[in-house]
């Protein structure tokens, strides 16, 4: 609890510090990171706690983004309508995709979630009315009224931060509830969970739907971040990126999504924007291949911290 307060205190002070040194760019980068943290946290719920390796989480993330984008273009900029709609559509997509794919296991589950997500990707790429390949530009960020202007990057940051806090708190409650215990048990020994009387499929499906809904919220936010919705949000590479964040941060840990998103996105930014002399003298154009450099750093981290970075901070388990 103390640790959570400390983390959020730092996150709350951060933009004020950036404003003081006139580096508002970092506030924008930080809100992007926090949005990805929500998305990665949602994936961690099914992947880490549920043990369900969903390789199609971009579908829910992207669906949430497109709902907000399409509503904005169609003249419905209100966050009070668009964001719940994004969450609902993502939850519905998760219900349909989950209902079918949760009947399979292991590699088949990975492949079928991937296939569904790619189908949705191609649907949106071919939807020329809403941008197709080029993506969809929104007139601006969602409106909330109440004198709050989301176009202000500082305000925007705090809205995102508040939502991240809500998501993490909700996840904390969920993991320690009856439902969370059942999810834990299913990951541990699915056959036995069924044999002591739990309708396992229903629990997995609800877990998948909750995760999809939260990913949809993250999608609604990422659409607002740049007032632009790219179909690449739906692409399998996006699913892979979220998965890397989870693995990097810590599978099945509360903070794994936030840590993973922070490290990965900050790293990408650092490598692309800061030229390191001694590396450049060896490979002058290394920054054009930032992906390779990021990959090497990630590989090192994963080798040194196989439990994910959250594992490095973990207190010894009280038993």
């Amino acid at each position: 609890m103390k640790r959570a307060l400390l983390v959020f205190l730092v996150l709350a002070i951060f933009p004020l510090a950036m404003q003081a040194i006139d580096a508002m760019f970092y506030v924008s980068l930080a809100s992007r990171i926090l949005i990805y943290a929500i998305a990665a946290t949602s994936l961690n719920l099914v992947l880490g706690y549920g043990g369900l390796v969903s390789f199609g989480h971009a579908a829910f993330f992207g669906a949430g983004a497109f709902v907000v984008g399409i509503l904005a273009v169609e003249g419905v900029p209100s966050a009070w309508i668009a964001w719940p709609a994004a969450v609902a559509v993502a939850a519905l997509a998760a219900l349909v995709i989950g209902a079918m794919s949760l009947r399979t296991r292991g590699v088949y589950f990975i492949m079928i979630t991937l296939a569904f997500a790619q189908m949705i990707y191609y649907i949106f790429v071919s939807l020329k009315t809403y941008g197709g390949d080029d993506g969809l530009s929104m007139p601006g960020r969602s409106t909330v009224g109440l004198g709050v202007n989301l176009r202000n990057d500082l305000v925007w940051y705090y809205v995102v931060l508040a939502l991240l806090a809500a998501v993490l708190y909700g996840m904390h409650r969920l993991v320690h509830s009856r439902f969370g215990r059942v999810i834990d048990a299913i990951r541990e020994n699915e056959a036995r969970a069924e044999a002591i009387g739990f309708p396992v499929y229903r629990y997995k499906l609800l877990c998948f739907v909750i995760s999809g809904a939260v990913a949809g919220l993250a999608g609604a936010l990422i659409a607002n971040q740049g007032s632009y919705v790219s179909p690449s949000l739906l692409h399998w590479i996006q699913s892979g990126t979220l998965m890397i964040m989870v693995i990097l941060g810590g599978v099945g840990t509360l903070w794994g999504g936030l840590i993973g998103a922070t490290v990965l996105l900050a790293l990408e930014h650092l490598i692309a924007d800061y030229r390191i002399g001694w590396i450049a003298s060896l490979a002058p154009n290394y920054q054009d291949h930032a992906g390779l450099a990021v990959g090497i750093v990630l590989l090192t981290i994963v080798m040194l911290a196989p439990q994910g970075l959250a594992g490095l901070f973990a207190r010894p388990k009280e038993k």
Partner: protein
Amino acid sequence: MLELRGVSKRFGGVVATDDVTLDVVRGEVHALIGPNGAGKTTLIGQISGVLPTDMGRIVFNGADVTRLTTHARVRAGLARSYQVTSIFRRFSVLDNLALAVQARSGSSFSLWHPLHTEHALFHEAAAIAADIGLAGKMNTVAATLAHGEQRALEVGLALATRPQLVLLDEPMAGMGPQESARMIALIEKMRAQVTVLLVEHDMDAVFRLADRISVLVNGRLIATGAPQAIRADPAVRKAYLGEELAA
């Protein structure tokens, strides 16, 4: 209480259980014996709903449960333990049992309320831990228990669902004499509350515990009766028991 009527199961061309008709009466300990590969575990799988039944009917407390899912049968009062220990290895003994208690008490689609405040669950789990002789090991992680203790927990998980009929699939598998004696005592104790269908290779245990014995050979039921009758049955002696009983 449990009626099997012509229950059969094949795996490809192999007949695992063949037209089994069997009654388990409320309050008895009914042993199911037979040589390896006779189809005992398959039959347990069919009764518990883990394996679909190809032909025949399974009736429990007057209701046809042949097509019910496993979890629905558990809710109806029909639980099982496994031959190969199947417990929640990373959970403590108490958490294992509390989970099974949780499965039958109230909805577990509760997403918000902290589980650890539900003292009733853990009190009941602690009582079951005492029943199965693990009172001193409640906070031990299941994976680190000794083999006999894991087997006791395996049975405890089935009991924690408060079944009317419990299917015990070789509860004494891999046990030494001392551990077996403890398991026999446990089954003696539970028979007051619950009907037992016991699959077991340990003949001493079977003849000490069973009110009636059924013999399964090559998927077919060749005899059912009181222990003395089974001991004397020439077909059973020929097919299975052999010298073991003659001695």
